C-alpha cells in the first residue's frame, strides 16, 4: 500500500467512525468494545417492544421504568474506563 493510499484510507476510516458510532477498528480496546456492545444491546431492548415487555414481566417493573433504566444504563454500562497508561 502506498503511503498516499494509506493516508486517504485512514481519513476515510476516521470519517466513517465518526459517522457510524459503534463501529470497531483494529486498535479498539476491550473496554471500548464491550461498552459498545452493551450500548447496542440496551438500545435494542428499548427499540424492540417485545424485549421491553419481557424484561418488565420478569422483573416486575413497568415498561416505562425498564426503558428509563436501560437508557440510563447506556451512559456507562460497564463501569468506568480502565486507567490509561501514561507515556
Amino acid at each position, binding site marked *: 500500500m502506498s503511503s498516499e493510499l494509506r493516508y486517504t484510507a485512514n481519513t476515510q476510516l476516521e470519517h466513517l467512525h465518526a459517522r457510524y*458510532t459503534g463501529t470497531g477498528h483494529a486498535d479498539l480496546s476491550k473496554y471500548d468494545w464491550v461498552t459498545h456492545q452493551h450500548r447496542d444491546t440496551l438500545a435494542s431492548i428499548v427499540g424492540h417492544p*417485545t424485549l421491553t*415487555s419481557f424484561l418488565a414481566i420478569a422483573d416486575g417493573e413497568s*415498561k*416505562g421504568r425498564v426503558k*428509563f433504566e436501560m437508557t440510563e444504563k447506556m*451512559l456507562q454500562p460497564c463501569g*468506568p474506563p480502565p486507567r490509561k497508561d501514561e507515556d
Partner: protein
Amino acid sequence: MHLYNLTLQPPTATPQAIVGNFSGARQQEIITSHGTRLELLRPDPQTGKMATVIATDVFGSIRSLAAFRLTGGTKDYAIVGSDSGRIVILDYDPKTSSFVKLHQETYGKSGARRIVPGQYLATDPKGRSVMISSMEKTKLVYILNRDAAANLTISSPLEAHKANAIIHHIVGLDVGFENPMFAALEVDYTESDQDHTGQAFQNTEKMLTYYELDLGLNHVVRKWSEPTDRRANLLVQVPGGQLASSDRFDGPSGVLVCCEDHIIYRHMDARQHRVPIPRRKHPLEDPNRSIIIVTAVMHKMKGAFFFLLQSEDGDLYKVTIEHEEEEVRALKIKYFDTVPVASSLCILKSGFLFVAAEFGNHYLYQFQKLGDDDNEPEYSSTSYPSFGMSNPGAPLPHAYFRPRPLENLVVADEIESIEPIIDSKVLNVLPNSDAPQIFAACGRGARSTFRTLRHGLEVEESVSSELPGIPNAVWTTKRKEDDEYDSYIILSFVNGTLVLSIGETIEEVQDTGFLSSAPTLAVQQIGADALLQVHPQGIRHVLADRRVNEWRVPPGKTIVSATTNKRQVVVALSSAELVYFELDLDGQLNEYQDRKAMGSTVLALSIAEVPEGRQRTPFLAVGCEDQTVRIISLDPETTLEAISLQALTAPASSICIADMLDASINKTQPTMFVNIGLQNGVLLRTVLDPINGQLTDTRTRFLGTRPIRLIRVQIQRNPAILALSSRSWLNYTHQNLMHFTPLIFENFDYAWSFSAELSPEGLIGITGSTLRIFQIPKLGTKLKQDSMPLSYTPRKFITHPTNHYFYMIEGDHRVTGPDAAASKLDELRKQGQIIDDEVVDLPPEVFGRPKAPAGTWASCIRIIDPIEAKTVAVIPLDCNESAFSIAVVPFSARGGELHLVVGTAADTLISPRSCSSGFLRTYKFTDDGANLEFQHKTETDDVPLALLGFQGRLLAGVGKALRIYEIGKKKLLRKVENKSFASAIISLNTQGSRILVGDMQESVSFAVFKPPENRLLIFADDTQPRWVTAVAMVDYNTIAVGDRFGNVFVNRLDSKVSDQVDDDPTGAGILHEKGQLMGAPHKTKMLAHFHIGDMITSIHKVSLVAGGREILLYTCLHGTIGILVPFVSKEDVDFISTLEQHMRTEQSSLVGRDQLSWRGYYVPVKAVVDGDLCETFARLPAPKQSNIAAELDRTVGEVLKKLEQLRTTTSGF
C-alpha cells in the same frame, strides 16, 4: 420440510396509541400500534364502545407513532417511526378503508439500531415539521408543507445530531407560529468514557436542549441547552404561542420535565417550577422508593389546558399551570384516579380517555368530572421556596394522597387483550366440543388471568323462554315494508302454527290472518303491506285490511318446500313440480301459467332477495333428491327454464342464495353466492355467475354431523348466512372480507333474524322447546375468550396425566404478598400506628400489590379446573420463595405414584441471577388431585428453572446443571449430574432416553442418559447461539424452537447419528468423540427459519381440526397465536412460494420494511412461506390479482381457494 406460517390471532399488545381525525370527518379516531400491526379504532361517543375500523399487518416493527395536522387542515396524518430506516407518513383513506402511504423517506439502515432514527418522534403542534430521533446522537428534522395542489410535501432531512449523546426523550414545543422548536433530553458520555476515576460519570448532567428549525434559513440550530434533573425521563409539551386573531397567549410554552419523584416546568429564559409527585399514603409504602411518570397526555380545551400524568403504579395525576400571559405563576399537581398502567393515554374531545394498557385489557373511560372541586390535596410550586427550585439537587418533602376507587372516570368499554401470553396448553377438555381449546396463562401482576380460548363467535343471550311444544321452525316478520322493527314471531309446530306479537311483552295473537291449524313452511312480508304464509295445503296472502287471498294446492298434492322474497314466491309440490308466483304492480300474487316438472323430488329451494331497484331476482336454485342442484331462470323471457346443473356428493338438505360482499372476489358489488348444505354435513359455497347462471368457484367445508339448514339473516344491516348443523356457523362480511365462524352456543334447530326495540340487531333461535333471542356482539373475532383471575404473574402450568386439573405456578417480583403484608401491618399496629384499612383493602387488580425492593417475591401454586374455569385450591409459598418450574413425576421408587415437584428459589435476584437457596418441593396429590400434600423440600445451589419426569425419576435443570433425582424419605436424592451447560437450563423435553435441553443463551442440546454407566451425555448441539424461550419435539430427531428475538426455527439431528447414539450401550463412544466447534461432537441442522416479530412463549404440536393434520401452534408474548403448517406436496410449495414472491413485489410494507428482510431479521428465512402476506392477495385490486393469477397459470378464484383451503383444513379458522 417446508412450512406455511399463518397468524390465527394477531398481537393485542398496544405499545403506542395516538388520537386524531384520521378520516377527516368530525369524529376522532385512535390509531394503535400492535408492534407489527396498525389498527384504526373508532369510539362511538353515544354508546362509548370502541369498534375496529381496519387492522393491517405492516411487516415491520413499529417503534413510534405521531399524529399531525397541517396548519388549517381538518385531517390528521400518522407518522410512523419503525425499524425500516425510513420515515413514513400514512393517510387513512375512508373510501377504500385503508392506510395509504403518502411519503416514505429513507434515512438509514434497517433494524432497531442505536444510531438509526425511529425510536422517538416529535411533531410541531402547528404541523410544520417533525423530528425523528434515535437512541443516540442522530436527530433528523423534516419540514412538512403543502404544494399548490394542497398535497402534503416533505423536505429532505436536516441534521440536528449531537455526537456521544444518549437521547432520553424528545418533544415538539408549542411556539405558535414562530420557528418550530424541539426539546430533547440528552446525556453526553464523552467525558465519563474518558475518566477512569468515575468522577466525570458522577458529574454528568442531563441536558434539556432546544433545537430550533429556522424556516427562513432552512437549517436547525441548537438554541439553548441547560442542565436539568439527572433522573429526568420524559418531556411533555406545554401549550404556548399566540393566536393571530387575538393577542392572548394559549399558554406559557415550554416543557414539563418529568423526573424521579418530581415534575419541573422549564422554559428558555423562564423561571423553573418544581412540584413533587404525590405518593400513596399506604402503610406499606416504602418512602425511599422513587416514582417516575411513565406516560402523559396534554389536553387543550377552550382557553384552558391540563395534563394527565401517570405514574408507574397506575396513578393518574392532574397537572395544571397557572399563568399570566407567558409567565408561569404556579405549577399544581393533584391525584386524579387510578387506572391500569398505560403505554399510551389518549383524551378524546367527546370526553373519553383511552388507556392502552401496557399489559392486559385496554380500557375506554368516560370523564365524569375533571377533579376540579374535590377535597383532593393539591400541591403547588408556590408552597415551596423559590417555586421548589431553591435547591434543585435535593428532593422536596414527600407529598401524599390517599388512593381511592374511581371518582372522575367511569369505565365505558373494555377491549380484550390476551397479552402477555406466558404459557399455554392446547387440548380438548370441554365436553361436546370437537375442536381443542387453547388455555393461556396471561397477564402480569394482580391483573393476570387464565383464559380459555375457543374458536368461534361470542353469543350474548337476552331472552330464553320455554314453549309448550317443540317447534320445528321460527320466523319473525314486520307488518309493513317500511316498519323499523319486527311485529310477529311465527312458530311452526308439527300440527299447527303459533303467532306471537312483539310489543311491550311477547304474547300470543289470534287475528293475524295466519292459518293456525297447519304447520308453516315459509313466512314473508310481501309487497308494501301484506303478509304471506306458506303451509302444506296452500299459500295465504294476508292483505293489510286482513282480507285473505288463498291459493290452494291441487287435490292429492302438498307443498314440500317453499322460498320467498319481497316480490316472488316459489313452491315445490309433492309431485316434483315447481309453481312460481310473482307480485304484480297492484300487489296481486299471480301464478305463472306453467308449472315446471323437475322429475325428482325437490328437497330445497332458494331465491335471493330482490336486488335494489329491480322487479325480481332472476335465479332460482333447486336441490333435488337425485343429488343435483339446478339453477332455473325466473327471467320473464325464459321463465322456469333450466340454466345449469351441479352434481353433489349427497342430497341437499338446504340451499341459500345470498348477495354478499366479498372484496376478494368483487371489490364494489356484492357477489351472488349459492350455499348448498348437504345431508352429510358438508357445505358447498359456489359463486353464481350473474350473466350465464353457471356455478363456479366451489368451496367445501365440513360443518358438523347433522344435515345442514341454511338461513339468510341480517347482521349489522348486511346479509349473512346462518348454517345450522351439529354446530351453528355464521357466514358474514366483516371489513369487506367474508368470514365463516362457528357460534359458541347451544345448537339451534332453526333460527331467524330478530329486530325489536330492545334488540335491534338480534337473532332468534329454537333449541328443543326453548326459544332464545340473542345477539352476536363482537364480529370479526375468531377466538372467544373466557377468563378467570389469578393472583400473580403466571409462570408455567402443566396438565395431569389422569385427572383434568391444571397445576399452575405464579410469582411476582418486587411485590409484598398478602401474608407478608398482613404480618407487616400487624407489626405496625403493635407499634401503635393507625392503619387506614380502606386504603389497605383496595383491590389489587387495579391498585397493584404493595411494592417491595428487588429480591422480594410473592408466589403460589394454583390448581385450576379448566372445565368450570375456577380455582380449586391455592397453595401460597412462604419464606420469600418463588416458584419457577413444575412437573408431575411418577416416581418408580414409590411404585409409580404421581408426585408434583415444584422448583422454587428464595431471595431470587433477576440480574445477575442469584438466590440464597433453590428448592425442589415435593407434593403428593390428594382428593383426586384437587389438593396437594407437602412431602419434603430439597435444597439446590441454584434456581431450578426446568423440571421433568424422566423414567420414573425427576430430571431437573438447576442453573447450569442437569441432574436426575430419585425420591427419598426426607429429600430428593441426587443421582446423576452434568454441569457442562452454558448459562441456564430453561426447558426440558424427553423421548425414550433422549433428553433435549434448552439453554437460556446457547440453543438446544441433545443429551442421552446411559443407565449402565449412569451417565448424562451431551452428544449434539446447535451451531448458533440461540436464546431459547420455547421448545417442542416435532419427532424423535426434530425440534421446533422459539427464541427471545422473535424467531422460530426447526432443527434436525442426522438420523445416522441418532441411531449410532442409541446403539451405543454405555455411551463410551460419545464420551471419547472429539468435540466440534468447542461443543458437542455432533451438530443439528437447521431446516427452517422464520422471524415472527413476537417472542414465542410456547409451541405445541397439535391437530386443531377433528381428523386434521398435525401442525405446530405457537403463542407469543404480545398475544400472537399462530400456526406452522407443513406442506404436503411439492406442487403446493412451488405454487405458494411463487405467490409469495409476487406478493412481495405487489404489497409493499406500510412502514417501508422489506418483507423478506423482516422475516429474515436475524437469520435469512428458510423454508417458510409467510401466509399472512399471501392472504393479503384477497385485498389486492382486481387487475393485480388477475395478473398474479395469470403468472401462476391459475384463476383468481383458484388462488383464493388454495389459500382458504390451507387455512381451514389445518386450523378450521
